């Protein structure tokens, strides 16, 4: 805990300073509320509207977790398959990159046309933004397995599955976790965007309603909630990483 305090006070101080400047600027320049609300009025709105926010928040978090789990699982499976089949990898790699060049904003309405307003198009959107960092990171981790270690395993008579399970997978795990961390933050964004497609609940819905009625303070509440949820997600993955990669901690 004291370590967190030691490391955390600098960014916290900067954040606080920024908020103070924002607050002062809004008051000094007399900026109207619907244009840019002061941090205090955002906080006030957050406090007042918290009860109404909860269902939105809950549904977004569930969607994020579901999409993240599905997206990352697919990402890891794709990485393993492509690693095991180098010929396929060559053929499919450009497609993977292309999949990231399709703007989600354009794709999202199409998905609704194809799959309706249900859960499926939303999960597809989150999966599309989630799997790529994980796939690339995992493939890179598999590929960079030191050749001396591979030679040792092969000469010791390791089968292909043993080589993967005992060497390539654990070696790639740190890389996989960096991919997971990126995906964790993306998945929150993905969930919010997918809620714009049409949903009954969710931070994305709350946000659209707020901006169409010029409740700028509520838009900012949504923004801050998205940031906090992203941070918490990132923190959870980091904690899981610490636990899974204990050997790295003890090395340093």
């Amino acid at each position, binding site marked *: 805990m004291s370590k967190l305090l030691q490391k955390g006070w600098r960014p916290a101080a900067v954040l606080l300073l920024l908020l103070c400047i924002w607050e002062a600027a809004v008051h000094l320049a007399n900026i109207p509320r619907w244009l840019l609300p002061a941090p205090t009025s955002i906080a006030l709105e957050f406090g007042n509207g918290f009860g109404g926010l909860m269902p939105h928040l809950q549904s977004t978090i569930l969607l994020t977790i579901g999409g993240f789990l599905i997206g990352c699982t697919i990402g890891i499976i794709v990485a393993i398959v492509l690693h095991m089949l180098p010929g396929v990898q060559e053929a499919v790699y450009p497609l993977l990159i292309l999949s990231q060049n399709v703007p989600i904003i354009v794709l999202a309405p199409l998905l609704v046309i194809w799959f309706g307003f249900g859960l499926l198009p939303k999960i597809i959107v989150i999966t599309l933004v989630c799997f790529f960092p994980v796939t690339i990171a995992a493939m890179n981790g598999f590929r960079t397995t*030191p050749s*001396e*270690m591979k*030679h*040792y*395993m*092969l*000469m*010791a*008579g*390791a089968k292909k599955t*043993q080589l993967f399970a*005992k*060497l390539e997978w*654990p*070696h790639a*795990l740190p890389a996989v976790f960096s991919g997971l961390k990126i995906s964790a933050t993306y998945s929150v964004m993905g969930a919010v965007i997918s809620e714009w497609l049409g949903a009954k609940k969710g931070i994305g819905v709350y946000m659209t309603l707020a901006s169409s009625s010029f409740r700028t303070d509520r838009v900012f509440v949504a923004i801050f909630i998205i940031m906090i949820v992203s941070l918490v997600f990132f923190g959870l993955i980091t904690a899981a990483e610490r636990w899974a*990669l204990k*050997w*790295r901690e*003890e*090395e*340093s």
Partner: protein
Amino acid sequence: MALLKIEHLSKSFDHLHVLEDIHLHVNAGEFVTILGPSGSGKSTLFHLIGGLLKPDEGKIRLNGEDMTGKRGLISYMPQQPTLFPWRTILDNVLLGQELQGKRDEQLAIEMIEKAGLAGYENAFPGQLSGGMKQRVAFIRALLSPQSLICLDEPFSALDDFTRLEMQQWLLSTWTTYQKTILFITHSIEEALFLSDRIIVLSTNPATVKQEFIIPFERPREKSLILSSEFLQWKRELTESIFER
């Protein structure tokens, strides 16, 4: 009968002729050293024996059976320790056994303790010094179920103090566990101190140049390397290496 027998072995990489018509054998229980300069193809020879590479010509036999190109029949300690950083020392040491089936933790713990690494069973390799890592890599090779152990310059990265200590430790462990060792080095002294027999390789391409049977009695003490007999042998080996 010889445990390992290598006949007419040749290997080239593209246009580089590395090994030329290598003949050698290792008897069960013997400690044989291959002595050759850096880049002569010693590691390549081990990769051939281990089945990682296929020879252009020649056969490798284990107990009379053709094992050319087959993997998993010898135990191996690579030139770098190549311990797996995510495995504890105990799990590292058991890796060779794990690949072949059963784990014998009792024996592993005993050997870790005998190697002076008691208390490190659950440590990770990152916490160990170079010499300790080499010990772990050697125990891993020793615990593997195969009877022939191939050691590729295990001590070349160590300082003089540690090396001499490790050589003695290697000898005492070897006598206890009754394995056959094929050892690679480019150090004449190391070869003399450790071996029953030394096979000297020439370079470009490597061929077996000469073979020496080393008569020093076992167990061998540190003081051996200062005896006049040892120095006499050293001179003889050096001359053999430099004569063309």
